[in-house]
């Protein structure tokens, strides 16, 4: 009896002692989570290497990031991610200590402290008209110890003090049709030239005093041929342009205020010229480049008007900006691409024939072509010039080349992820060596001794450091094989550059990367866009030997009828298995829940003409598909027109596109929202692969409620037209938000609720039988979150548990398209403090574990919020029974507990999406948040009830067991001896 109660006690205490792992201890950071920081594709780079001390390069990127990088390792010193509409137009370093950024279409100028990235000043520039031309001109002009920067934006020329951002003078260029092409500041003079085109054939030149903005001269001259595109300055008072046909080169000089044109047909320079040319602007004195089709021609300008071709090449060429290395000497770099190598040449501007530097660097083909190059010089020990080059590749990666080697590289393509999917790792094969096991055993014991020391507070600081590094460097987590708990997986991500990466969930390292051929710029496809990523082949059961693969869907160009492109990529090796250029467009992709004998998933691609195309195009797939022909329904949302339509298949394609795998479709239903009062701003459905464990929910008074679980539910949020603009410009009376639940097979609106005085943006998540959405309440001036739960009433009579158990709980009412499903909804609203960027929900293998909402806040953190806080049955004073059930008393605001930020003290800058993937272990879910940064962690929403935690002390358990055994034997012998004595007595 004693032993039994002891056992019960033991079990009780054992479970109660499992830590409530809702939050992290600080020393657990990095155990299961990882965080990576990126920048995006570099737009502009400025070196800062003059002073002794840290050598830096400041970059601005297409993700609106301005960052200072360590030139030696490529690490980030500091970084700022500006707002999403705050596009950076130009950067520069002023006074040797400030980074100046021009952003938001040339209207905001900021200065950042170079060492630590603190903003020093901010000033706003305005101009008389909106124009695209923007220039940030570095000058060495000094007015009373102060440097000035010259900025042309929105039709106004500003001179801004670098010290405090004050506008010293401004000059408007009001001319209606004037398009300013260049702002030139000849070094060593106090003049500024502003050149541009007015109407189509007038060349305008303004000469301005840089010290006070006074207009000194204004000349204009007409050229009958007109102008095309950009101009390239070749000398301080000469620019090169193209005429409107693109066949004649114009050298325009405006020396001493006299404008003169010199024409030179390109055909005179290049024998076999073809087609119109394009000027590649460069800032190198006396040299410019033009591009005709794939041919790049470098032209030198001699004596104002004489042009001379110095190089003509078929290779992709990039030219850097000029770098003045000494008095009057300018150097520039030329990078050419040749299959496996890139050739870097650095030349002096006035001396084409000699190279200051010529290097060939082996380059991974999966980085694509060189897009940009920036050079910087240093003085070698032998007093000669050395050069380092920063290059931006087609896959958005950033590399530093020095002495023919890649010093460092950054995979900045990962800052712009379009889509994410996961793949399993290979199964572990046998063949683990014995030596390794023994080694591991020794390490294991040592590790546990250390841990024990740590627990008993006997560890020295060195020991603590060793424990920490041991925990972080756990070799188990980055193994390349599947693990028992399903924590190790591959995250397959598609980036905007058209590159596919596989990241290991253990530590985030890149397993492989592949630049997809189908998403590269080519003659047929000028602007390829990656769209989606789907699991194509998920081998299990009978197709175990096959490698899993993913399907990448892209299209050519932004228009809706652009032809699509498919790629199939092996997720173990990263090899592109095959790629297809489609003849039809891709408007919608429907992954079907059917697989063929090789475990390939069937996908239905809907094109812009509403034809459905089945992939894979195999007879087997067609036969599977035809069996399920009448069960396939889908919907489409036309945001602009406010229409939601339901579709089904009709039959094989007729007409000229007749194809085995092409099917005609028919429209089943449509819901038209009144365009004058409602605008669709959000639609969300359940995740296709979500598992629901139980359909019934037992509530406090032993009642059973049945969840209405349908895969065909669509949540739609619409707002009044006026409410579709940003917060701050509408009054509560003229804005409302309507939330709908729509059955996508029948087109029936199951539920509809109007929130008066509310507006978007709406972020929503749909799971099981509930939807949670976030919006702005104008009346309360706060954000709100609402939950709608939908229950099936038609089965409410089936309260007999025995019937349920025996499976005899069939519905009394027949299921029919025409009968309205008998559902009830419950909803409740709460206040939520922050703006939201994304909402997701945790997902587990079997759906038993309770759910948490993952809310990406405006501060780029991810907050985990228990779904129990968003339960419509919450009341202010729950009854005892309800309390036992776990219902939390109702409070207006949702709690924000700092410990439940899954990103703890980190930020996922520029957060765009949160993805959850179930692990094999039921309690655990894997969370991946991406934006400019990447963050990954494991979450256990109901604690790890099915496994011991990581910090479980096995050694202590072992010691206890040993001690107990010893005690047993000792007492045994004692009792034996005593018994013997008893017997002798």
């Amino acid at each position, binding site marked *: 009896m004693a032993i039994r109660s*002891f056992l019960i006690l033991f079990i009780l205490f054992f479970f109660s002692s499992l830590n409530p792992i809702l939050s992290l201890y600080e020393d657990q950071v990095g155990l299961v989570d990882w965080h990576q920081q990126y920048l995006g594709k570099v737009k502009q780079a400025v070196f800062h290497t003059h002073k002794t001390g840290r050598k830096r390069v400041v970059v601005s990127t297409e993700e609106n990031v301005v960052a200072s990088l360590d030139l030696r390792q490529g690490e980030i010193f500091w970084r700022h991610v500006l707002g*999403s509409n705050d596009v950076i137009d130009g950067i520069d370093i002023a006074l040797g200590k400030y980074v100046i950024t021009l952003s938001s279409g040339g209207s905001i100028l900021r200065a950042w402290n170079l060492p630590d990235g603190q903003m020093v000043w901010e000033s706003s520039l305005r101009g008389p008209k909106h124009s695209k031309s923007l220039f940030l001109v570095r000058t060495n002009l000094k007015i009373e110890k102060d440097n000035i920067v010259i900025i042309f934006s929105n039709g106004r020329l500003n001179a801004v003090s670098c010290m405090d951002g004050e506008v010293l003078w401004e000059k408007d260029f009001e001319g209606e049709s004037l398009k300013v092409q260049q702002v030139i500041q000849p070094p060593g003079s106090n003049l500024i030239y502003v050149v541009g085109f007015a109407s189509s054939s007038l060349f305008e030149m303004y000469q301005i005093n840089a010290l006070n903005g006074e207009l000194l001269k204004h000349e204009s001259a007409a050229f009958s041929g007109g102008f095309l595109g950009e101009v390239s300055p070749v000398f301080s008072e000469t620019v090169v342009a193209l005429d409107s046909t693109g066949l004649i080169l114009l050298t325009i000089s405006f020396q001493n205020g006299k404008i003169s044109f010199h024409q030179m047909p390109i055909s005179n320079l290049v024998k076999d010229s073809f087609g119109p040319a394009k000027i590649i602007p460069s800032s190198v004195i006396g040299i410019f480049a033009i591009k005709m089709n794939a041919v790049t021609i470098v032209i030198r300008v001699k004596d104002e008007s004489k042009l001379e071709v110095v190089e003509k090449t078929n290779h992709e060429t990039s030219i850097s900006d000029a770098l003045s290395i000494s008095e009057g000497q300018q150097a520039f770099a030329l990078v050419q691409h040749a299959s496996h190598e890139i050739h870097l040449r650095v030349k002096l501007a006035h001396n084409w024939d000699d190279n200051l530097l010529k290097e060939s660097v082996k380059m991974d083909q999966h980085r694509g072509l060189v897009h940009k190059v920036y050079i910087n010089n240093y003085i070698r020990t032998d007093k000669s010039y050395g050069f380092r080059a920063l290059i931006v590749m087609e896959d958005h990666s950033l590399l530093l080349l020095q002495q023919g080697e890649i010093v460092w590289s950054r995979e900045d393509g990962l800052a712009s992820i379009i889509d994410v999917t996961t793949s399993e790792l290979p199964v572990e094969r046998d063949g683990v060596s014995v030596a390794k096991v023994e080694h591991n055993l020794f390490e294991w014991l040592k590790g546990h001794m250390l841990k024990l020391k740590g627990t008993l507070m006997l560890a020295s600081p060195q020991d603590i450091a060793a424990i920490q590094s041991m925990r972080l460097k756990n070799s188990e987590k980055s193994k390349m094989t599947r693990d028992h708990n399903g924590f190790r997986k591959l995250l397959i991500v598609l980036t905007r550059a058209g590159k596919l990466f596989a990241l290991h969930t253990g530590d985030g390292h890149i397993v492989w990367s592949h630049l997809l051929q189908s998403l590269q710029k080519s003659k047929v496809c000028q602007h390829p866009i990656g769209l989606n990523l789907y699991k194509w082949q998920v081998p299990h059961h009978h197709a175990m030997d096959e490698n899993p693969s993913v399907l990448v869907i892209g299209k050519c160009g932004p228009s809706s009828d652009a032809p699509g492109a498919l790629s199939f990529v092996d997720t173990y090796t990263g090899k592109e298995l095959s790629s297809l250029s489609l003849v039809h467009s891709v408007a919608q992709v429907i992954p079907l829940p059917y697989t063929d004998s090789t475990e390939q998933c069937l996908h239905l691609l809907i094109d812009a003409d509403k034809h459905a195309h089945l992939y894979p195009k195999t007879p087997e797939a067609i036969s599977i598909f035809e069996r399920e022909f009448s069960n396939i329904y889908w919907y489409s949302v036309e945001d602009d027109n406010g229409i939601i339509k339901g579709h089904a298949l009709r039959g094989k394609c007729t007409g000229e596109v007749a194809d085995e795998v092409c099917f005609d479709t028919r429209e089943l239903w449509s819901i038209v929202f009144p365009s004058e009062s409602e605008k669709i701003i959000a639609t969300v459905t359940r995740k296709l692969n979500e598992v629901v464990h139980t359909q019934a929910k037992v509530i406090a008074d032993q009642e059973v409620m049945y969840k209405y679980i349908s895969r065909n539910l669509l949540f739609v949020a619409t707002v009044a037209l006026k409410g579709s603009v940003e917060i*701050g410009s509408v009054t509560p009376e003229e804005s409302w938000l309507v939330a709908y639940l729509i059955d996508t097979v029948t087109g029936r609106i199951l539920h509809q609720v109007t929130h008066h005085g509310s507006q978007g943006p709406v972020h929503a998540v749909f799971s099981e039988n509930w939807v949670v959405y976030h919006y702005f309440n104008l009346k309360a001036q706060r954000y709100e979150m609402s939950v709608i739960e939908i229950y099936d009433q038609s089965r409410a009579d089936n309260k007999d548990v025995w019937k349920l158990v025996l499976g005899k709980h069939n519905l009394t009412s027949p299921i029919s398209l025409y009968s309205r499903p008998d559902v009830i909804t419950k909803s409740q609203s709460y206040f939520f403090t922050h703006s939201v960027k994304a909402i997701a929900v945790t997902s587990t293998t079997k759906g038993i574990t309770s759910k948490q909402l993952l809310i990406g806040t405006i501060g780029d953190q991810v907050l985990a919020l228990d779904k129990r806080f968003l339960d419509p049955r919450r009341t202010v004073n729950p009854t005892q029974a309800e309390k036992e059930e776990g219902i939390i008393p109702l409070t207006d605001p949702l709690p924000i507990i700092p410990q439940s930020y899954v990103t703890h003290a980190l930020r996922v800058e520029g957060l765009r999406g949160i993805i959850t993937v179930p692990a094999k272990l039921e309690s655990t879910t894997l969370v991946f948040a991406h934006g400019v940064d990447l963050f990954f962690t494991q979450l256990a929403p109901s604690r790890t009830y099915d496994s011991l935690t990581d910090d479980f002390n096995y050694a202590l358990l072992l010691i206890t067991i040993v001690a*107990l055994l010893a005690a047993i034997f000792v007492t045994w012998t004692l009792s034996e001896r005593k018994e013997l004595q008893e017997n002798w007595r």
Partner: protein
Amino acid sequence: MAPIARLLLLALLSTALTISSGSGDGYTINGRVKIPQGLGTKGFALPGKTSNVKVILNGGQIVTYLRPDGYFSFQNIPAGTHLIEVAAIGYFFSPVRVDVSARNPGKVQAALTENRRGLSELVLEPLRDEQYYEIREPFSIMSVVKSPMGLMVGFMLVVVFLMPKLVENMDPEEMRRAQEEMRNQGVPSLASLLPGGGRN
């Protein structure tokens, strides 16, 4: 801590901040973020520096940063009611509702949305600091005793030392009876106590 000290110093020197009508088609909202020195210093190092504090207007429409003295400004803002949020790691800021209207330029109409407290000037202070980590309990003998292993050992000790005492305190007659019973039944070995091994 240096930037904060400087911030505090400047807080004393500078005064109110306002909404002023800009030169162009909008208004300017000027304000200040003040992080008091007392917060965030205990426990572990200050997670966020002032250079990483963002001030966000209307859920991301405009994002701006703080100057070294904690000031920020939004320019070219249309009239209406706007929402300002401060994103700073380590601190919890309430969003602030700011009314910008043409009628009373130069006057601030601002209120914290969390507790509806009005602000006479646009100085934003954190409501509380945020601890993202649990704090480890320091090692104590009680935690070892309370752990399952500790309990097991404790129970063992109880059995070993208290049980004989209990046996001693028993009535001698009863004791004899029990011993007789035992003799009849056989050896009271440990095996009989273990589950499965017990015959009684």
